[in-house]
């Protein structure tokens, strides 16, 4: 009895092969198509770089959006807007600069030349923060209430490298902007 009832290896269920081979090929094609599509929609997602934000200012209006750019070192001022603690600074990207008033404390790693990503909206007034004029100074400022720091993929220790290697994201050109002070 036991000899007869020993568990057997499962029968190979060889159903139609062809559809699955086709499926695998289709999957590869599909991944390629998806890759193509995401490439096409590049440039539309998540945040506006500073130059695009300035260019599309009239389209954006007072709607909220996310802005990205590199803070310019000599422009950073911590002060008050009314009673509220703010950080005012100018940031640049792609040759354009934007004056920013960030409401709240700056991010821990907030520093010059390290790109930040900010949530907020355009305000059609010059920034009113004591001691801050702004490098753009175009009658507008970006009022932000959420700040993230976009650090790069360089893991470098300054002590061992004489100069900072600026291989990070193409387009960050804070060095072009010259502070007047």
């Amino acid at each position, binding site marked *: 009895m036991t000899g007869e*009832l020993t568990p057997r290896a499962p029968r190979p269920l060889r159903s139609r092969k062809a559809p*699955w081979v086709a499926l695998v090929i289709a999957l590869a094609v599909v991944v390629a198509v998806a890759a193509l599509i995401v490439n096409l929609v590049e440039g539309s997602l998540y945040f506006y770089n500073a130059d695009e934000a300035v260019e599309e200012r009239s389209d954006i209006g007072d709607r909220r959006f*996310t802005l990205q750019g590199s803070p310019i070192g000599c422009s950073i001022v911590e002060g008050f807007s009314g009673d509220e603690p703010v950080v005012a600074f100018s940031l640049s990207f792609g040759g354009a600069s934007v004056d920013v008033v960030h409401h709240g404390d700056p991010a821990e*790693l907030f520093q010059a030349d390290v790109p930040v*990503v900010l949530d907020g909206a355009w305000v059609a007034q010059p920034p009113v923060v004591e001691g801050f004029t702004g490098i753009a100074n175009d009658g507008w400022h970006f009022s932000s209430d959420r700040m*993230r720091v976009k*650090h790069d993929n360089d*893991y470098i*220790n300054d002590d061992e490298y004489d100069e900072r290697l600026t291989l990070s994201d193409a387009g960050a050109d804070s060095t072009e902007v010259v502070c007047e002070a």
Partner: protein
Amino acid sequence: MSADAVNTGSRTTRLLGAAVLIGVLALILLGFFGAPEDDEQRDAVRMIFVHLPSAFGIYAAMATTAVGSVMWLWKRSRWWDIVAHSSAEIGVIFCGLTLFTGSVWGRPTWNTYWDWGDVRLVTTLILFLMLVGYLALRSAGGDENAMATRAAVVGLLAAVNVPIINRSVEWWSNRTLHQKSSLTDGNLEDLTLFTLFVGIVVWALFFVWAMIHRFRIGWLEHQLRDIDLETALIQRRAEAATESSGEESR
């Protein structure tokens, strides 16, 4: 270990396990005391030594699941089906750890635990949820062959996410908060790079160790299912025999 304890280990897994333990010790020493701090992130950079190996673990696990799923669909190979299931289970752990260590790293460096706008973060989370769904489907039970086919389709659907996750920081370069690939286009200190490789090797060894154990568990479960069926058959036949003999004697 007592001599009569039966388990899923073998000489290979014991060697692997020992290597993982030694590797973890080395990684802790290198990670906390060997590698230098980063000039932007300071010591927070040391999170990369657990974060990136976990992320690589997802890729390895999902690739294995994808191959296993295809091989089941193509060859109806139970072996590959168990491989796909095993690696998906390990993959969900790697995926959870990647998300967790990434968030904990993000708070001091990005100033946020999570960002809904970042493609890599969101696609990784979607993969995690799909893997949870995969395991839920696997645990739903039912006919073994039908279940393997269903799971294989879901496994492939989930695996499609992986190339998107991996490439997202390039496709949306300048559009993601997440930094670009650290290994391929990053600029790392020698010792940081070395520590990172140690981390990847340790995680890879752990992956292999876990795969062997998990595969054997899957195999045993499969055997047990067969045996349960046989036992039920024997019992049923025995019942039938007593019933019929009872009727005859009446």
